[in-house]
């Protein structure tokens, strides 16, 4: 379990758990009724999936910058690729550039099949402790 995610109230609200293999975290958002955004389909709220992606990226960046208290997002872009069904969601992030001040991260979220992602994220994080 990522010690960081365990410490963040919103990650706990979403029920996130994580698993680390080597340097790579896989974060799971277990299905819960309170994640439903569209009761008619039913489908997960896009905001919950976006938050999972963002927190996965935060945790992955934190692993690469152990001296940083908390990576701060500069911007995030989420593309919603498929409807989030009422089952667990998993996510994994990859740091494409680990700069001195800024890190660029790509992340994907999927349900049963990793090759069929339900959403993807592109984000920049500020990783310099005393920067803006």
């Amino acid at each position, binding site marked *: 379990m990522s010690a960081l995610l365990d410490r963040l109230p*919103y990650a706990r609200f979403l029920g996130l758990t994580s698993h680390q293999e080597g340097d790579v975290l896989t974060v799971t958002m277990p299905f819960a009724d309170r994640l439903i955004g569209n009761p008619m389909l039913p489908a997960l709220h896009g*905001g*919950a999936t976006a938050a999972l992606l963002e*927190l996965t990226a935060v945790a992955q960046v934190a692993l690469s910058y152990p001296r940083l208290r908390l990576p701060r997002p500069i911007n995030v872009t989420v593309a919603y690729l498929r409807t989030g069904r009422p089952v667990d969601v998993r996510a994994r992030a990859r740091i494409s550039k680990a700069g001195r001040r800024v890190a660029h991260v790509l992340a994907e979220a999927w349900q049963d099949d990793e090759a069929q992602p339900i959403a993807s994220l592109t984000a920049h994080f500020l990783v310099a402790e005393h920067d803006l």
Partner: protein
Amino acid sequence: MASSTLVSLLPQLASGAAHTHALGFAFDRLEGDRVRIRVPWREDLVGDPDTGVLAGGLVTALLDHVGGLAVWIALDRFEPIATLDLRVDYMRAAQPRRDLVAEARCYRLTHSIAFVRAWAFEDSPDDPVAAAQATYVLSGREAAK
């Protein structure tokens, strides 16, 4: 101007789903084509336990949701829509232990896509915590993705 039928639905559309209810989202107000919703500060929605600031992911969810309301206002009816993509710029940290408000406006509606801008702030959209640009697919129509 949105019809009274849609306006009367706004509180339900703002907080009626399980997720928005769990997050405490509430309809705030409608002025012309600009709609506002609010999320009251709560300990379990915090992103940084050392500062008490609401989570970035929550701000994203709030902006995504208020953008959807702006689309229904532009359509002047409720119909199924789906967020296609959403970009959020975080301009500054939110103030600790303060409610957040989000305002959105749908500035262009085509046959199948709605284009939206949205802002999150404590007091005024002139001093935003975050700004978003989002597109939504009008999935009730033929051209759905």
